[in-house]
């Protein structure tokens, strides 16, 4: 880990997978992959209300594409 970090910008180039508009939602693992973080961090974001998931059958969590775009300040 380095002490020098880039400063956060308003928006970042979207991962190609997130450009696929036919995809409406992603599993937590897929969302983590798109964001480039560990998936437990995505569960934390959900727990803290930074990401609002939807629940499909039997309670499985999915992260809507619109929520990811909102998080990445694209929408």
């Amino acid at each position, binding site marked *: *880990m*380095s*002490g020098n*970090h*880039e*400063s*956060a*910008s*308003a*928006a*970042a*180039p*979207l*991962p190609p997978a997130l450009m696929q508009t036919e995809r409406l939602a992603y599993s*937590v693992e897929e969302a983590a992959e*798109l*964001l*480039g*973080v*560990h*998936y*437990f*961090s995505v*569960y*934390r974001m*959900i*727990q*803290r209300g930074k990401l609002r998931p939807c629940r*499909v*059958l*039997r*309670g*499985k*969590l999915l992260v809507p594409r619109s929520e990811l775009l909102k*998080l*990445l*300040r694209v929408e």
Partner: protein
Amino acid sequence: MIKRKGQPDREGVAPPALKRMSDTEYAAYFEAFGAIKSDYQALCLIGDKLREVETSARNLGPLDPPAPNTHTELPDSVGDRSPWEVCTSLMRFNRNEVLLCKRVCEHGLEYAVIDHSPVASVYAKVHGPVDVLRTGDNPRQVLRDFLRSERETLVLMTNDITATVRLLIAERFPKQDLRRVANEITRLCKKVARVGFSESLTDATTQAQKQGRGMGVGGA
């Protein structure tokens, strides 16, 4: 190695503690557990790490400054505030690291638990690599609040994993009653994710501090 009908268990996952398991239940169990095996292992790992953090927090002792070679600073996401100084690493995953940090503010020292994401990640490019999870002027309270919130996150993750199991069983074995299998896997997941964080952490840490042992967080 537990065996059934002379066959070794597959995937290194022990069969469930179900009595008189039918062939269908047996097949469903291994298929479902195979699908969530990596999640189950992650659950075990995170649970273990949180228990370690709890133990460390309980033994939070001499508040010595960190060694000079481990001194690291993280910029605050807001930008106009002083940077965070890393006291200790609480958990490290392949991408993220959870750190206990401190900094000087106008009222004295401020402590924080920080989720540090890779600088090059898409998330960090928008929000910065530093995600502050908890802050406060008392490191023990900050750790206690963090652990409580992690327990809730672990429950969320466990429920998501067991939902995957129920979905998979319903898809692969339709019109069959395999509730015993789903319930058994749910029980196993909840068992490894059970983290009994002590609510009396303050008392324990005070005792540890008096005895001069445990994790140092520096300069309080």
